[in-house]
């Protein structure tokens, strides 16, 4: 089949799967529901692979015209190029594995069919976002994934204790995302006004050829708006606090949406718009600094979190920060490489945490875990691989992708390199802490839960194993130039072909010796932290204490830098105050008061006029006669 036939199929399959499950799923056996959803996503993956093997130039497929006005034409058209197909492979591939995992994980949930409907709709929206050939379709997907994210964060909305909290978390995520969405929309207006189109290919052509000269201010405005949009979806300062709360959703959702795919939409947006960002150095710097600060702040918070999912959530925020650092330096392909490996190991870690939570009767506090390594061996080994991959342990996937970012940073300046290294060090610290406290030592939960600890079914362990393998070997996609010279940087070269703008960007590589030194530093640092963590958490067997006993930086970290409290004070409280006072004072007292005053005035006037209607005939005769006289006088004067 040709690409133009395959592309709509890739999109439609998850939509059809979602529709079948949504309409008929309630009365279908659970296995069938799960299989349909998993199959739909897997088939999309297979079709994406078929495109992957035959694509040699960007192909655009126009399905229909959504809106055609004199000044704009908005098409439902889709673009297959190397970037979008690569992202499609990640989304459908990792997505299919997570679907499979969910079949085991959600087995006993009454909302089973709803869950799979939402998952498939999410995949559909995500594919709209990735495969759309213009910003308009991207925006459709962009908001669509937000809706699915909302539905899935608040999936357990009827829970007796947490139902309302889950709903609030969902709403928070959506509202914060919407702030970014508005900026993205404004950015689209600017692009439309400036270039008259939202199609990537035409835009790239106009911008790079320079048909239309754009002032630096305009370019700054466009890119800043797009970037703010990206900070919402990809959880960067200041719009990142929704992501940790989003952990209220079922764990496979955290793995799929809030780690592997949706949160990388912001990165994708920037890579897609690389030709715009290349002309806006200020925005690039802004991305770099925001990314760096986010990365360090989130890593700092992650150091003293005790909820297994919260640690991973802050870790995701921190890794996304690193990605923005890469983007800020113009290293777009490096960013996509790290997006890829991050999708592998972060999905693995989240699914692993799901497997842990599943095993210990829905407990999420690592202080009540411990000693799980022999009880759930598959989860343990795969989680360990995930941990090593994210901390950049030699030869695992994270090692290569992180080193690329470090190397680019080193190429820019040393201070930047050191700051990124600090973030990497902190990552190793909280990840090893998480791993050791969860899996080593002795079990600290109740006796009753201990007896229930068990490994999940094959549908849960299989995806863990596959993702673990990918996390180990993922690095070969983009080897540094020091080994296998001819095969080096395969992914970068792949992405630079057929992707608007990227082919023009020249990436220079550091000398082999420098790369070797940088690698050695990274390896030594990781190993050192591993050793220290081992001695603290395993040898000395120290367990995290209660939050109330913390002081100094640990207290600040455990309390998430008080950012929620600050936002609450700065934004939520004033708006609530305005809403309540606005209603009680301005609406009911002031506006209503004005109207009442006017009507009272009229009523008082009426009282006076009423006296003229005295009911005495002689008064009426008088009025009548004066009226007639008046009229006669008037006409006489007029003549």
């Amino acid at each position, binding site marked *: 089949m040709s690409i133009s036939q395959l592309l709509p199929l890739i999109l439609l399959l998850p939509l059809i799967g979602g529709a079948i499950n949504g309409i008929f799923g309630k009365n279908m056996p659970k296995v069938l529901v799960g299989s349909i959803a998993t199959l739909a996503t897997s088939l999309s993956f297979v079709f994406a692979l078929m495109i992957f093997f035959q694509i040699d130039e960007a192909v655009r497929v126009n399905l*229909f*015209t*959504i*809106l*055609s*006005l*004199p*000044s*704009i034409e908005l098409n439902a058209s889709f673009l297959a190029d190397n970037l979008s197909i690569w992202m499609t492979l990640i989304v459908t591939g990792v997505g299919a594995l997570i679907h499979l995992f969910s079949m085991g994980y959600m087995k006993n949930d009454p909302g089973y069919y709803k869950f799979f409907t939402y998952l498939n709709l999410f995949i559909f929206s995500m594919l709209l976002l990735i495969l759309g050939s213009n910003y308009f379709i991207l*925006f*459709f997907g962009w*908001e*669509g994934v937000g*809706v699915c994210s909302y539905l899935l964060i*608040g999936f357990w*909305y*009827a*829970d*007796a204790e947490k*139902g*309302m909290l889950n*709903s*609030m978390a*969902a*709403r928070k995520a*959506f*509202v914060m995302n*919407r*702030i970014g*969405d*508005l900026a993205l*929309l*404004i950015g689209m*207006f600017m692009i*439309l*006004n400036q270039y008259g189109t939202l199609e990537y290919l035409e835009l790239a052509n106009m911008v790079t050829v320079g048909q239309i000269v754009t002032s630096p201010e305009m370019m700054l405005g466009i890119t800043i708006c797009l970037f703010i949009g990206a900070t919402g979806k990809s959880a960067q300062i200041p719009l990142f606090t929704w992501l940790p709360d989003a952990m209220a959703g079922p764990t496979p959702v955290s793995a799929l949406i809030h780690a592997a795919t949706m949160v990388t939409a912001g990165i994708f947006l920037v890579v897609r718009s690389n030709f715009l960002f290349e002309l806006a150095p200020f925005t690039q710097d802004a991305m770099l600094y925001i990314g760096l600060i986010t990365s360090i702040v989130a890593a700092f918070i992650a150091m003293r979190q005790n909820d297994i999912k919260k640690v991973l959530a802050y870790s995701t925020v921190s890794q996304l920060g690193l990605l923005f650092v890469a983007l800020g330096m113009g290293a777009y392909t490096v960013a996509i490489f790290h997006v890829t490996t991050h999708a592998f190991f972060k999905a693995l870690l989240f699914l692993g945490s799901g497997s842990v939570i599943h095993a210990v009767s829905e407990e999420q506090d690592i202080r009540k875990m411990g000693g799980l390594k022999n009880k759930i061996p598959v989860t343990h080994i795969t989680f360990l691989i995930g941990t090593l991959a994210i901390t950049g342990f030699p030869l695992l996937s994270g090692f290569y992708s992180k080193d690329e970012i470090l190397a680019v940073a080193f190429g820019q300046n040393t201070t930047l390199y050191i700051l990124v290294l600090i973030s990497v060090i902190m990552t190793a610290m909280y990840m090893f802490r998480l791993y050791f406290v969860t899996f080593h030592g002795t079990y600290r939960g109740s006796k009753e839960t201990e007896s229930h600890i068990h490994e999940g079914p094959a549908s849960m362990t299989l995806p863990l194993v596959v993702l673990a393998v990918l996390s180990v070997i993922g690095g070969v996609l983009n080897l540094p130039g020091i080994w296998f010279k001819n095969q080096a940087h395969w992914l970068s070269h792949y992405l630079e072909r057929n992707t608007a703008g990227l082919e023009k960007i020249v990436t220079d590589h550091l000398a082999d010796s420098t790369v070797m030194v940088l690698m050695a530093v990274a390896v030594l640092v990781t190993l050192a932290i591993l050793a220290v963590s081992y001695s603290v958490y395993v040898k000395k067997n120290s367990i995290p204490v209660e939050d109330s006993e913390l002081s100094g930086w640990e207290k600040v970290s455990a309390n998430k830098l008080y950012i929620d409290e600050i936002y609450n004070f700065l934004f939520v409280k004033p*708006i*609530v105050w*305005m*809403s*309540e006072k*606005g*209603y009680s004072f301005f*609406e009911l007292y002031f*506006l*209503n008061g004005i*109207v009442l005053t006017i*009507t009272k005035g009229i009523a008082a006037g009426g009282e006076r006029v009423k006296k003229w209607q005295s009911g005495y005939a002689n008064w009426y005769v008088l009025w009548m006669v004066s009226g007639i006289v008046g009229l006669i006088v008037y006409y006489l004067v007029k003549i």
Partner: protein
Amino acid sequence: MELLIIPLLFALIALFVPKQFLRYYALIGGLVSTAVAVGHVVTYVPADLYVSVFDPNWASTFGLTYKMGYDGISLIMIVLTNLVTFLILLSNFNGTLASNRMFTSMVFFMQVGLLGVFLSMDGLLFYVFWEISLIPVFLIFLWFGAPGRKADLIKFFIYTFVGSLAMLFALMMLKVGGSGFEGAASFSWEDLMKVQLGTTSALWVMGGFFLAFAVKIPLFPFHGWQPETYVKSPMAGTMLLSALMLKMALYGMMRWMLPMAPEAIESYTMPVVVLGTIGVIYAAILAIRQKNIKRTFAFASISHVGLIAAGIVVMSYDAMTGAVIQMVNHSLVAVGLFLAAEVIDRRLGTNEYENLGGIAKQAPRFAFWFGAIVFAGISIPLTSGFIGEFLLIRGVYFYDMTWGILIGTTLILACVYTFRAYQLSMNGPSKNFNFPDLTWNETAVFFVLMVLIVFIGVYPQMIVEVIEPSLKTLLDNIHSSQNIAH
């Protein structure tokens, strides 16, 4: 002409239909008139100015011409009116009012009034229908409204009446003429449009129209009558007010206010954009902490229509298209949201959040459809609201960047109060009450609404093609007379 006569007949005959058949009779009436309107759309061929449906070619001594007709824009409003009337009757099918003759008759009378407004191509006729349409909705409120409504009734009446008088004044001024300009030959739309107003008189004429429309939309700060009227009217009344009656005013802005006094548009654009923006933000913020679901939606309505009004006065073709799409969308969403409030009220007898919660668990079908309408209400892509708001915000943004961004915050604020309304009533654990799921007719209404919302959201081109020639003609007319004035 059958557009007007059919509902009129249904309104009159309703008074004599046996009570047990009344609900079926109402549905038939709604269906027939909708079918007739759809027939007009199918056979619609764009004409020069408008397609004439009634023109006795006779002018009375004071200039009334009885001209009636429609163009693409009015046609969309006519279909919308008939369809929404049908949906209102359908959603009432199991209610207590369904067997009330006066109620059924009044709903059809309302339809007549609204259709008259959309069909009138004569200023005085427009005014007459404008006033006629006030009577049935007022009577529905008076007869069937919630207790404690007397003060709100009076307020509602005074507000709208003052506005109407201002419009009458503007019409008279156009016809009679004044210092520095000739009056029109008749009240017909074409003649009124030909009047060349002076700078000051144009301001007065437009001001008169504006006041009438601003009250009925309602625009901030002319909205004082709206929240309580919406809350205390019976559901059908609220739906008629929010889904249809305010569309008369938005339509009036496009058809009457802008073409009649184009000389004054430039002086009015900025103030209306500012008022619209303030209204969008002010009403949204107030909606956030309301304690009653119906009042939340009442403020939401004020917030949403502020954007439409602002989009209309910026006078760009795109924004006008967006305005028409958004008018349709707002009607559909308003019916859906108020029906959701009514579904709750019918079963629990309350709309206060403190008594609600956990309904989703008991009534999954209701949870689904209410949820779908909520997403339509916050203008998610693939729903009609997104297309409308996209074009409107873009229009305002294009006119003025700052106000465009400010008015765009509706995207953020809307999801705060709409989700809050849904979550406080539906989410959480089940409470201590029994909540039967949707009946077939309620489900049917939600279903029709969502099908239309998604269809327009995916393929808005269908509406665009109907209104395109008319909108172009309208804007060309306005621009050319604007140029003469300069």
